[in-house]
């Protein structure tokens, strides 16, 4: 039964990864060249979806935190941990691809710009969540403290989004989700939206599989403790 589950996990993973690869192909061969930035803008089809996947992870952690406050269940924290790991991975990818894009466009790998700083803060919050989870003993206190941090992670996301309008930044203002509609070429927008959906799909798959691993590990620990007790 478990072998069948693992095979279907591999198959679904291959599906999500090939969907992502297909959107990358669209990014290179379907989307036209940007009039201002030239070819280098194609990094955006990796950078923006990674950011959206990281933001989606924060929403999941927020919901799990709310459930955790009510149920005080340790199991919900396993899923929050899995989501934080995936969120951190995608935030690192967002920062790295943004930095790689920044060098040929702005002439610098990094600047303490509001958008970059608040995104860096998101990475620190995700890392802090994982450290906190590991350092605290299982119990209601851990559920409570991690839940509070989970809410803080979620609060950072609208700040990241609004940072380019609240402060003067080097990072360009929103060109997709803005008042008055998108300023993007329809082909670029279509490709970008598909890339976001595909990347969120990959993120969801990673969370589900990592969460399942953590659950198996948890069962292993409780079963082995029970064996020692008997």
């Amino acid at each position: 039964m478990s072998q069948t589950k693992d095979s279907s996990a591999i198959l679904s993973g291959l599906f999500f990864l090939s969907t992502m690869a297909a959107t990358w192909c669209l990014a290179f061969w379907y989307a036209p060249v940007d009039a201002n930035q030239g070819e280098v803008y194609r990094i955006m089809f990796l950078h923006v979806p990674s950011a959206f996947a990281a933001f989606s992870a924060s929403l999941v952690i927020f919901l799990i935190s709310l459930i955790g406050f009510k149920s005080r269940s340790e199991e919900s924290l396993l899923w929050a941990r899995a989501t934080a790991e995936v969120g951190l991975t995608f935030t690192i990818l967002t920062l790295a691809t943004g930095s790689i894009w920044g060098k040929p466009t702005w002439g610098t790998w990094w600047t303490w710009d509001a958008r970059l700083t608040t995104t860096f803060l998101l990475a620190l919050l995700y890392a802090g969540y994982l450290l906190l989870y590991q350092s605290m003993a299982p119990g209601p206190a851990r559920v409570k403290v991690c839940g509070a941090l989970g809410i803080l992670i979620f609060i950072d996301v609208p700040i990241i989004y609004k940072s380019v309008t609240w402060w003067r930044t080097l990072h360009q203002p929103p060109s997709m989700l803005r008042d008055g509609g998108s300023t993007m070429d329809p082909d670029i927008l279509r490709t970008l939206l598909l890339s976001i959906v595909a990347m969120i799909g990959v993120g969801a798959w990673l969370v589900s599989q990592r969460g399942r691993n953590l659950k198996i590990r948890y069962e292993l620990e409780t079963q082995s403790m029970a064996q020692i007790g008997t």
Partner: protein
Amino acid sequence: MDQTISPNTSPTTSQPPTYGPNTDPTPYIAGAYVFGLFLILGFAGFILIERRHLRGLMAALKKSS
């Protein structure tokens, strides 16, 4: 004299630009996508290897009980 001035190149030097529209984007695009692939496939691979290891441990535990 006809001179093209890019944001970071002096008209007196012939060094390739390090940023701006005349920069060769290939290494940057390749670097970003290779890093993305490495990170995502690395994480997915780690999960699947860990799963196999955990299933092995679970089977051993069931055998010993």
